[in-house]
């Protein structure tokens, strides 16, 4: 079973076309093992990316290097998944 302990989902809002193309390039950078949840559209439209815990530090450094602002949309994905699973289990129990 795949777990996502420590994985974060970062929200990046490109401020201009330069940042836009830098973020587009991310999709090709396999070393970060990114999972693009919501892809690049245009400047000022958010991009959401799931980043595994083991590449989080280097990925954030990369963004900071290029002055690309980001916020953390999901702090720890596994916690959310666990909560969802609990909710489903308890709904199933109530149903029974």
């Amino acid at each position, binding site marked *: *079973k795949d777990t996502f302990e420590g994985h974060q989902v970062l929200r990046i809002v490109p401020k201009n076309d330069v940042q836009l193309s830098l973020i587009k390039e991310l999709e090709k950078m396999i070393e970060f093992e990114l999972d693009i949840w919501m892809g690049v559209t245009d400047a000022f439209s958010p991009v959401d990316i799931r980043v595994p815990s083991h590449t989080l530090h280097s990925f954030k450094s990369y963004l900071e290097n290029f002055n690309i602002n980001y916020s953390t949309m*999901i702090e720890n994905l596994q916690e959310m998944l666990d909560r969802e699973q609990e*909710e489903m289990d308890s709904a199933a129990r109530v149903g029974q």
Partner: protein
Amino acid sequence: PRNTDSFDYARYHPINEIYSFQDMLVAENPNMVSKLVIGQSYEGRPLNVLKFSTGGTNRPAIWIDTGIHSREWVTQASGIWFAKKIVKDYGSDPALTAILDNMDIFLEIVTNPDGYYFTHTSNRMWRKTRKPNPGSSCIGVDPNRNWDAGFGGPGASSSPCSETYRGPRAHSEPEVKAIVDFVKSHGNIKAFISIHSYSQMLLYPYGYTTTPVKDQAELHQLAQKAISDLTSLYGTRYKYGSIINTIYQASGGTIDWTYNQGVKYSYTFELRDTGLYGFLLPANQIIPTAQETWLALMAIMDHTHKNPY
């Protein structure tokens, strides 16, 4: 649940419960609902389509599918709600009644069953199909890049490890091929609506090219009406436009293929939300999402019914 009235529409269900729901709905409404099996997934699961019909032969039809990207759980959950809504509203909602008196509706709730099963058992974040790729340790194809419409062009990946891997050739995935064969053999599909999440958009072709479709003006106007209806319920804000102008270039997409097959009213949705939860939309938002989406679906279906071509 013993019947579809006691089914809990406000929670997410594993695939066996969705299969049971479909069978119950057919058993309860034998004169309106039937189940077609249009093919098998790679792992051998049935590709079930609910047919809503009040009679006639090969009537003009509307196709709706949910869940082609398996992790987008709110879409399968909304599909279940739509199925029940169609049965409940026929005979009481004049617009839906008029549609169903003249047209059939086909609804595929679990378009990527192997992926959906996998999201419940092994990897909640799985998006693709589950067919192995020869020569690679990475599994699956993005079934929304596998259609014969600009296949292999920009906006899809040639790498099996990518989330947007297009597959070895167009229609290589049995889940896609089954729909292709169905649409071609039916020959009278007038609207095709493929439902995804998240990011709140209603999109029409094209995704693979910037060339506008010849019906762009009408599709845009109808999208505007559909979104205005959707927003009227809870104020949810949607963007609308062509795929390439509104999201990004994407080749091999579903509705580009259907449009090129002659299905004028080809649309794809991105349902809630805008990013607080992503693919983990809390279950208490399933019904509001389905309710507001239904208003937009009705706008598209009603327009299709009133504008035969």
